[in-house]
C-alpha cells in the first residue's frame, strides 16, 4: 500500500495548522480590539473561503503564483519559492483556505472574556503581550483547541484548492483526498477504501477528542 498521500496530507495539515496558529492569534486579537474602519473588509476577506468554491481560490492562486506573471516571478526570484505545483504552494493555499476556521473560534473566545480582565492586567502594569499570553489566551483554551482542530481537519479534507495549485504530483503534492478520487476513477476500490477509511477514522478520533476535552468528560473520567 502506498502511504505517501496520507503522509503528505498530515504533513500539510500539521505545517498549515502551526503557521495558522501563529498568524491567527494576533489577527483575532486585533479584530476583537480594533475600532478601525477597515475591520469589516478584513473580516469579509477572512471569511471568504467559507463560501467561495475552492476552485475559485485555486484558480486565482494558480494565476497569481505562476512564474509566467510578475507576482509569481517576483516571489520566485526574491524568496526562491516556486509555489505552483509544489508543497510550499499547497501550504500557502491551505493557510488562506483554512484561515477562518482558526480565526473565528479564537476571535469569539477572546470576545466573550470580560473586558475588565484586560483592564485589570493593564492597571497592574502589564503590557499588551503579557496580558494576551498570560491572561487572555489561558482563559480561552477551549476556543484555541477548537480552532486548532478545525483548521487541521479542514486542511485534511481539502480537495479543490490542492488539486488546482498542487496538480496531484505523486509523492509531492498528491494528498489523500485526491488519491481517493484517482483510485475511484481507476476503479481501484480497495485502495480508495484504504485511504478513505484511514481519513475517516483519524478525523473521527480527532473530533471526538475535542468534544471530550471541551465537554470536560476526560476530567471526570480521570477523577
Amino acid at each position, binding site marked *: 500500500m502506498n502511504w505517501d498521500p496520507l503522509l503528505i496530507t498530515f504533513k500539510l495539515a500539521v505545517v498549515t495548522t502551526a503557521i495558522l496558529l501563529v498568524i491567527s492569534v494576533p489577527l483575532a486579537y486585533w479584530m476583537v480590539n480594533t475600532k478601525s474602519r477597515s475591520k469589516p473588509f478584513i473580516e469579509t476577506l477572512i471569511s471568504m473561503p467559507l463560501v467561495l468554491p475552492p476552485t475559485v481560490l485555486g484558480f486565482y492562486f494558480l494565476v497569481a503564483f505562476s512564474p509566467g506573471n510578475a507576482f509569481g516571478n517576483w516571489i520566485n526570484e526574491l524568496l526562491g519559492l516556486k509555489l505552483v505545483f509544489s508543497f510550499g504552494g499547497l501550504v500557502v493555499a491551505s493557510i488562506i483556505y483554512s484561515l477562518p476556521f482558526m480565526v473565528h473560534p479564537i476571535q469569539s473566545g477572546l470576545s466573550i472574556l470580560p473586558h475588565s480582565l484586560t*483592564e485589570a492586567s493593564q*492597571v497592574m*502594569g502589564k503590557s499588551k503581550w503579557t496580558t494576551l499570553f*498570560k491572561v487572555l489566551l*489561558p*482563559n480561552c483554551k477551549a476556543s484555541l483547541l477548537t480552532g486548532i482542530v478545525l483548521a487541521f481537519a479542514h486542511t485534511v479534507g481539502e480537495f479543490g484548492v490542492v488539486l488546482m495549485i498542487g496538480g496531484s504530483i505523486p509523492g509531492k503534492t498528491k494528498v489523500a483526498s485526491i488519491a481517493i478520487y484517482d483510485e475511484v476513477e481507476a476503479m481501484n476500490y480497495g485502495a480508495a477504501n484504504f485511504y478513505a477509511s484511514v481519513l475517516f477514522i483519524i478525523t473521527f478520533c480527532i473530533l471526538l477528542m475535542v468534544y471530550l476535552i471541551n465537554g470536560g468528560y476526560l476530567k471526570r473520567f480521570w477523577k
Partner: protein
Amino acid sequence: MIKIDIHKRLRAHDSEMNLRIKCKIKKGELVTLYGESGAGKTSTLRILAGLLKPDKGEITINEVSWVDTANKIFIAPQKRNIGYVFQDYALFPNMSVLQNLEFASNKAQNKKVIAELIEMMELGDLQNRKPQTLSGGQQQRLALARALVCKPNILLLDEPLAALDYKIRLKLQDYITRIHNEYALTTILISHDIGEIMKLSGRVLVLDQGKIVRQGIPSEIFSNEKISGKFKFIGEILKIEPQDVVLIVSVLIQNNVVKVIANKSEIQSLNVGDKVMVASKAFNPILYKIE
C-alpha cells in the same frame, strides 16, 4: 493631592452626556462618588486609572502631570501604579489565589507584601483555590488584596460591595477602613449604600449628569436639614399603606423593616423606593444587651 479637571463626551446607548469633573482630593482622604447610574461615576474612576482618555483637561497627582491634553501628556495605565477593584472583581480564572496575587507584583521583593496581604485578608487557607470556587466575599477580599500588591498610593473601588449580602458587607467595610489607614491610601469609592458611605468616607461627591452637584461630609449631604436628634437612620420606603386615619410606612433600614406612622400631609412628597431618613428626638430609647 489629586487634582482633576477633565471634560469628556460620553455616548451611552442613545444618549450623550458631558462629563465635566473638577475636584481636589487630599492625600489620605476616603472620598465616595455618589449618584444615579449613568451619572459618570465609573467613567471618572476609569479616567483616573487611564483606562479612558478625557477629551480635554488635566489630572495631576502630587504635582506630577498624568494627563494634560494641552501639552499632549498621557501617562499609560501601566505606569500609574493605581489599585483598582472592578465591579466584577476581574479575577483571573486561570490562576489560583496566590498566582493572582503574584501576577500583580512586579518584583521579587513583593513576596513579603503578598504574605502580609494574605494574612490580613485571611486568604491563607484559600491560596491554591481558583477564584471561581470562592464565595463572593472571598473573591472580594482577593480583589482587594490584589489591588494592593504593588503598593499603590491611590485605591479606586468601583462598587466593591454591591453584590454581597449584608453581613459580609459589614465585615468588608471594616477591611476597607483597615487597609485605607494601614497603607496610608488615598481611596475613591463608588457606592450607592448611604449607610456604607456614612461609615466609610469622610467626604461625598454627589454626581448628576456628569457634574459634581454637591459635596461635603456624608451626614450633611444625606440629611437636608440638620436635626439635633439622637436617632437617625437612612432607609428606603418599601410600602405605604393606609390604616384607619393614618398611613403606615414600611422603611428598610439596612436589613430591618421598620414601620413608621405618618399622616397624609407628611406622606405627600414620598413614594415607594424613595430614600428617607428616619429621625426622632423626643423619646426614650431602651438598651438591651445582645451579646
